[in-house]
C-alpha cells in the first residue's frame, strides 16, 4: 500500500490531486491537501467527476461521494484537516434532512440548503473558469508589448508670480515704518512718589503709639501696581525717616514683618 493510491480512491479524486497522496509510514497515509483548496474545492472536483452540468448535479450523489471519500480516508487512517470533517458532518446532516420526512418547522428547508450548495459550486466553478480565461487574454509583456523605449513626456513647471497691490503698498508701509526713527512713550502708571510717602509716613507715625507694620501705612484702597509702588516708596520713606531719627524700625529676621514706631 505504501506509496500507492488505492483504486477506490482514484474514483473520487482527480489525477492531479491523487498524485499528492503519499505514504508516510506503513499504516498512515497523509493527504497533501494543498492539492485541494479546501473542502469546497474537493466537492467541486467530485462534482465535475460526475460529468454533468453543475445545474443537473445530484446533490445526494455528491454528498454520498464526499462521505464515502471521508470514510475511506478514515479507514486508511488518512489524516484529514478539520474543515474536511466539519464539511462531512454538515453534508451528513444535509443528506439525512433530504432523505427523512420533511420537518415543516425547519428553516431553511433541506432543498434550499442543497440549492445553495449547488450555487456555491457553480460560483466557484465560474470564477475558476473566468480566471483561466482572464489569464488567456492577450497580456501586456507576454502577448502584446508597449513601446520599450518611449521618448517620454515632460512637464515643465513654470512659476507665475502673484502679488496684489495691497501687498505691495503694505510692504512699503512696513519698510518705512521699520526704518523711521522710533519714539518711545512710557504709558502713565499710578505710582506713589518718595516725597509723598515720606510725608504720609511721618504724618501717620505721629498718630500711633505702638509698633505698626509697614503695610499698615499704605492707603487702604491701594491695589495692584499702585500698592507695590506705595509699599516700595513707604519702605524707602521709613529708611529715610529712621536716618533722620524720626522713627525706629524692627524686624525679627529676614522677610519677617517690618515694624515701624515713632521716636517722639
Amino acid at each position, binding site marked *: 500500500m505504501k506509496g500507492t493510491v488505492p483504486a477506490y480512491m482514484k474514483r473520487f479524486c482527480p489525477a492531479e490531486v491523487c498524485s499528492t497522496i503519499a505514504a508516510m509510514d506503513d499504516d498512515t497515509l497523509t493527504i497533501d491537501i494543498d492539492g485541494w*483548496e*479546501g*473542502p*469546497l*474545492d474537493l466537492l467541486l472536483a467530485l462534482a465535475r467527476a460526475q460529468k454533468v452540468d453543475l445545474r443537473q448535479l445530484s446533490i445526494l450523489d455528491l454528498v454520498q461521494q464526499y462521505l464515502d471519500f471521508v470514510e475511506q480516508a478514515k479507514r486508511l487512517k488518512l489524516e484529514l484537516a*478539520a*474543515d474536511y470533517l*466539519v*464539511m462531512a458532518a*454538515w453534508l451528513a446532516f444535509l443528506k439525512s434532512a433530504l432523505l427523512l420526512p420533511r420537518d415543516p418547522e425547519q428553516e431553511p428547508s433541506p432543498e434550499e*440548503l442543497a440549492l*445553495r450548495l449547488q*450555487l*456555491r459550486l*457553480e*460560483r*466557484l466553478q*465560474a*470564477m*475558476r*473558469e*473566468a*480566471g*483561466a*480565461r*482572464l*489569464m488567456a*487574454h*492577450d*497580456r*501586456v*509583456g*507576454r*502577448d*502584446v*508589448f*508597449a*513601446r520599450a523605449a*518611449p*521618448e*517620454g*513626456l515632460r512637464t515643465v513647471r513654470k512659476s507665475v508670480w502673484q502679488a496684489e497691490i495691497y501687498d505691495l503698498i503694505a510692504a512699503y508701509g512696513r519698510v518705512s515704518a521699520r526704518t523711521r526713527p522710533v519714539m518711545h512713550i512710557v504709558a502713565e502708571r499710578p505710582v506713589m512718589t518718595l516725597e509723598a510717602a515720606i510725608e504720609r509716613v511721618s504724618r501717620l507715625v505721629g498718630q500711633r503709639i505702638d509698633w505698626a507694620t509697614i503695610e499698615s501705612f499704605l492707603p487702604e484702597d491701594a491695589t495692584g501696581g499702585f500698592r507695590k509702588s506705595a509699599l516700595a516708596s513707604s519702605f524707602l520713606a521709613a529708611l529715610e525717616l529712621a536716618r533722620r531719627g524720626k522713627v525706629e524700625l524692627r524686624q525679627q529676621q529676614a522677610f519677617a514683618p517690618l515694624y515701624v514706631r515713632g521716636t517722639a
Partner: protein
Amino acid sequence: MNPPDDGVRAVEAVLFASEAPLTLDAIRAHVGDGIDVRAALAALEADYAGRGIELVRRGERWHFQTAGDMAHVLRRDREEARKLSRAGIETLAIIAYHEPVTRAEIESIRGVQISKGTLDVLMEAAWIRPAGRREVPGRPLTYATTAEFLSHFGLASRRDLPGIDDLRAAGLLDLVDLAFEQAEVAPEDDAP
C-alpha cells in the same frame, strides 16, 4: 497611409512617446485645447486597424501596443510574466467580477481562507487596490481592480471581462450571504 492632419499627428506622437497609457485629459494637456482629441483617437484607431501596432483603449486610458497576433515574433527573448498561483488567479477573478468585494466575501466564494500573500502579490502587481470600507459591522475593507489591471489584461473596461453578463444573469455574481455560508462551511474559522 494618408498623411493625417496635425491634430491627429500630435495625438499620435504624444501616445507614442508616453511611458504609460494616457487619459483624454492628459493627452489634451499636451496637444492643447484646439484639438479634438476624441476625433483624433477615432481617426488613429481606424488608421492603425489591422497593422502590427494598434491603438487600444484600456479603461479611460489609451495607448499603442503591438497587435495580439504578433506575439510569436516578439515573445522569444522575453521573460515569461511571473506565474500567478491558482489562489492568486481565482482571487483576482473574484475581485474583478464582484468588485468592490471584501476579503470575507472572497473567502466565502473560494471556501478557504486567503493567505496574506495572495492579496499582497496582486497589490504589488498593481492589479488591485483597496476600495474603501463596507458600511457594515466591522467596516471591512473592500478591494477593486485598477486601471493597470485593465491595461495588463487587454480589457477596454470591466464589461469586457469574459462572460460577465452571462454570469450576472445567472445570479452567480450576487453578493454572498456571508453569515449563512460561513456558519455552514467553516464554523471554526478563525479568520480575522
